[in-house]
């Protein structure tokens, strides 16, 4: 039972974590520089309908789902000695990185995004919020990308080792 749960959780974490890494890198590399160029009032308006619209349900579901998969994979891996030990570094690494990403999201991104609902169209306040969000998203993107790489490594380590699960 343990090995099956470990592998299922690593697959789940790779799917959800890949989605998070993709969107975080897209935001950081492509979108944030654009918002800075075309105007932050448009960003604030768009964010109210995207991240603070449908994103209120999708992003937490993705983030918490990926985190749970990583943590459950690490716990079941620890409790199941028959699972190939070659996967220990990426599985534990993915869990630590996913927790760090949650801390960055909870402490850095979410409070600033929620404050958009209160500050109205004050350009200076929006500029201040945007600068913080952009900085925290960069950290988040790096953590999600590393978590995704660790999960792909875990998947390969679990599958490509003799007597694998």
């Amino acid at each position: 039972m343990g090995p099956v749960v470990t592998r299922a959780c690593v697959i789940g974490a790779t799917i959800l974590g890949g989605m998070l890494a993709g969107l975080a890198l897209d935001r950081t590399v492509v979108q944030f520089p654009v918002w800075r160029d075309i105007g932050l009032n448009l960003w604030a308006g768009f964010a109210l309908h995207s991240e603070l619209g449908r994103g209120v349900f999708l992003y937490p579901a993705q983030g918490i789902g990926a985190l749970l998969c990583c943590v459950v994979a690490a716990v079941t891996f620890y409790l199941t000695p028959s699972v190939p030990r070659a996967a220990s570094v990426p599985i534990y690494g993915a869990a630590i990185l996913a927790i760090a990403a949650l801390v960055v999201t909870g402490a850095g991104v979410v409070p600033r995004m929620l404050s958009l609902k209160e500050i109205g169209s004050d350009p200076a306040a929006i500029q201040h919020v945007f600068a913080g969000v952009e900085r925290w998203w960069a950290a988040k993107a790096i953590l999600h990308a590393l978590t995704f790489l660790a999960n792909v490594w875990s998947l390969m380590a679990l599958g490509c080792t003799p007597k694998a699960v």
Partner: protein
Amino acid sequence: MDGILAGGGVDRALIALPAWRIVGPMGWAAFSQHADLGNGRLWYPLWALGGMICSVGAAIILYRDSRATSATRAPVYAAAVFMVGGLLITLKAAPIMMSINRLGNDPVALQHAFDGFAFWSYIRLGSQFLGWLANLWSLVALGSMMNRGGERSA
């Protein structure tokens, strides 16, 4: 590579396009001129072409590998088909995106462009997402194939 592409694509399909529908085509056009036709001009093709080349390369290598079973071949071939399909559908979406530079501030024309781009984007992103799932399935299947090979040689 496909994971990064699919992640951005899912976000665009489920969050960004519906939000742009509310904000309006003028905002979408202004953003797209700097994003898809700016930084994204290198970023998106990098992942789309890179993922497609890797997927097709894997399918060709496996086609020539006599050890591969149909259970291993299926996801690898499916990934290649979906990734090539995604790129072909981009040929329908890309001209619409390229056209917004010359549409100016005509709200009706921009709304028409947005609707067309959104339509092809949903199909393209769906194909790329399925290609990515097939690639993950391929990783698992190839791992099992290597295990069998290791057990036989042991």
